[in-house]
């Protein structure tokens, strides 16, 4: 494959376009409400109406408004049908010929769609994730070609530094700096790993990207590999994402067949292979050092850093580890330039962020907004507020490592620093909205239970501390705790945060701490008066 082949492929794909395009969502969410049946019936109805030469029915990835699925979008009419059933298919096709479809539609000009800015999800819901040609038609792999032919690895790193992109896995480490460190680390063998072990409750951004546009992640990985000097990549995907795994396998196969992955990419001396590694269900394997242990075939437990993976990672070699969304940003940055990317977002947080909007909110689904968008724009304008006229009480970001942001702080812009100041984190993009009916102590206990179950058991503060904190939260909820227990809980939060080995333990107290900060009265309302019991804690109840 050389540039001309790629451009020819694009031309051929564009020339094959038909007058009308029906995009049918084939991501996991819509498939679970039978979008496979919808697509089959649409194809059948097109054939029956004799419109094969004019109408294309395309299975695409996520079209974002997940709560209304299965979704079918019509181009160029710019219509979107919601909650489509297979029985609706003939009616949708007859509407193309001037009839009236008896299917509900959503307004594509609603705030939910218009306030979005798509970089990561630009192709999501448009390309057919199972056909590489569909990605190439939208300038796919052009950035990789340009990088390999026009830029030195050093230029590539510099462009990344200039773009200001920060890691989308949650911590927000500057991506360019990470690439530069790995590039400069001595070693003849280096690795690139994509972390697709998305495990936060309520988060499904990475799954959607992988299911909807797998090639953008592969292209991003290849560019990164060229920048740091790696020739082997691993995609670490959790086993709970079978569709994402299947589409990735297919994408890798297609890219290899076309010479866009493998040996001598674009007939250059650059080699890059990608293999998939499937996680076995441990949340902690999303932590980078545990993930690498797992890829090596060992028990997935974290190890102390330093040394950092950039210096000594997979099999002891310098390793670049980025999240799915980070890699998905990469091709666009090289296609459109670092300045373009750096022009989006805030001073310290550049670009966009994808959020999985879930919980007590009208429009649940996937959104991508520029950094700095205020939370209330996201939950009130785009999300449509709480359902049934309820009032939003708090927004949880960052999953079990994050915190709850109360309603009075909804004017906070979404960026790494602002969320950090409120005791939460940007996180990987899970956003759970809570209404007045949610008890915050319940929320704290839920996330603590999650951390307790998912602790790997290696270090004592996380293994035993989460159990003690969970038991104390439970005691508070059962109205058996006193002010002394609450003090003990806060002391434990501080200790576990400061002494745990990895991010899981260090951030496990965050949901408790942030709810204590903003909703302390809810805790105190559940406390019992402190009575001196002589032997203090010797009269303990046995917890089963």
């Amino acid at each position, binding site marked *: 494959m050389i540039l001309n082949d790629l451009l020819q492929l694009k031309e051929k794909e564009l020339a094959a376009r038909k007058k009308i395009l029906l995009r049918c969502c084939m991501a996991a969410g819509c498939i679970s409400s039978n979008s496979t049946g919808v697509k089959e019936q649409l194809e059948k109805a097109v054939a029956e109406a004799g419109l094969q030469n004019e109408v294309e029915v395309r299975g695409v990835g996520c079209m974002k408004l997940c709560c209304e699925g299965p979704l079918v979008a019509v181009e160029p009419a710019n219509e979107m049908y919601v909650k489509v059933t297979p029985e609706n298919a003939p009616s949708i096709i007859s509407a193309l010929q001037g009839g009236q479809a008896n299917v509900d539609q959503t307004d594509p000009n609603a705030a939910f769609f218009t306030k979005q800015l798509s970089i990561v999800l630009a192709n999501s819901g448009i390309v057919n994730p199972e056909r590489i040609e569909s990605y190439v038609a939208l300038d796919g792999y052009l950035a990789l070609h340009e990088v390999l032919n026009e830029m030195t690895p050093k230029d590539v790193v510099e462009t990344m530094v200039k773009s200001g992109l920060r890691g989308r896995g949650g911590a927000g480490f500057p991506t360019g700096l990470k690439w530069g460190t790995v590039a400069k680390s001595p070693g003849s063998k280096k690795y690139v790993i994509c972390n697709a072990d998305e495990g936060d409750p309520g988060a499904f951004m990475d799954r959607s990207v992988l299911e909807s546009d797998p090639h953008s992640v592969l292209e991003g990985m290849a560019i990164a590999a060229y920048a740091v000097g790696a020739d082997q990549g691993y995609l670490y995907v959790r086993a709970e994402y079978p569709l994402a795994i299947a589409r990735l396998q297919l994408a890798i196969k297609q890219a290899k067949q076309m010479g866009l992955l493998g040996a001598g990419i674009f007939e250059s001396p650059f080699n890059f292979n990608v293999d998939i590694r499937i996680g076995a269900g441990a949340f902690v394997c999303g932590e980078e050092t545990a993930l690498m242990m797992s890829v090596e075939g060992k028990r997935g437990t974290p190890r102390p850093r*330093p040394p950092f993976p950039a210096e000594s990672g997979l099999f002891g070699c310098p390793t670049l580890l980025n999240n799915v969304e980070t890699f998905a940003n990469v091709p666009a940055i090289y296609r459109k330039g670092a300045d373009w990317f750096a022009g989006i977002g805030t001073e310290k947080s550049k670009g966009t962020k994808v959020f999985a909007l879930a919980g007590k909110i009208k429009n649940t689904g996937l959104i991508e907004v520029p950094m700095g968008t205020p939370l209330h724009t996201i939950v009130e304008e785009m999300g449509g507020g709480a359902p049934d006229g309820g009032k939003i009480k708090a927004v949880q970001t960052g999953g079990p490592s994050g915190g709850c942001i109360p309603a009075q702080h909804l004017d906070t812009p979404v960026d790494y620093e602002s969320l950090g100041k409120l005791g939460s984190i940007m996180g990987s993009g899970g956003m759970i909205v809570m209404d007045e009916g949610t008890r915050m102590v319940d929320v704290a206990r839920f996330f603590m239970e999650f951390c307790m*179950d998912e*602790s790997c058991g290696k270090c004592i503060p996380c293994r035993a501390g*989460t159990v*003690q904190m969970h038991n104390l939260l439970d005691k508070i909820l059962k109205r058996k705790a006193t002010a002394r227990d609450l003090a003990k809980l806060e002391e434990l939060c501080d*200790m576990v945060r*400061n002494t745990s*080995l990895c991010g899981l333990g260090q951030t496990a107290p965050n949901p408790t701490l942030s709810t204590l900060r903003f909703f302390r009265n809810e805790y105190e309302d559940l406390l019992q008066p402190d009575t001196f019991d002589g032997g203090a804690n010797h009269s303990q109840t*046995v917890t089963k």
Partner: protein
Amino acid sequence: MAAKTLTIDGRQITAEEGETILQAATEAGIKIPTLCHLEGVYDVGACRLCLVEVKGTPKLLPACTLKVAEGMEVSTDTERLRKYRRMTLEMLFAERNHVCAVCVANGHCELQTLAYSQGMEHVRYEYTFPKWNVDNTHRLFGMDHNRCILCTRCVRVCWHIEGAGTKNVAGRGGKSQIITDLNQPWGCSESCTECGKCVMSCPTGALFQKGSTVGESERDRNKLEFIVNAREKKQWNA
């Protein structure tokens, strides 16, 4: 190897490049409490007792894996660290069933010794009283999971000194446990070489030699009768 100059607890010391803070401190006669560390096997930084404060670093770092660096300023014994160490020990005691009075390791247990030395006077956390088994199927050794603190010393010596790879960790979080082969009774293990290194490495009474436990101590009352008979009746054959 270049020499590095650093400060530990206000004392200027020199250390070889590549040494850990724990090694450098030990050489200088500064004692840092440890539990999962075992001389001779690699360190994992799991027990968090050897955490130290390093000036300029917001995070606490384990002395057993932290390498010395030029000009480093390390504190090993601040009020905050002492408090965290006591809490860590309290958590360990509350986690499983540590009853010193009937333990085979009573008096030479590292957990017990640490609790004394760190001033842990009582446990403020609720005991969880989990139900754990005792594996007594092995000919020579026993494993009492009630007393295990999951330091993984036994796993490391089994894999990296003996090279047998019999011991391992299974499960997650508080439900983690040391297993033999693919979680089979120790007595059925075909990989175990009966070298006993795991027993030697155990800091508590979780791994023990058979015959050494309180429950196994037998009194040979017949011996008394034999001696009395022998003296009185001059009957020296039993």
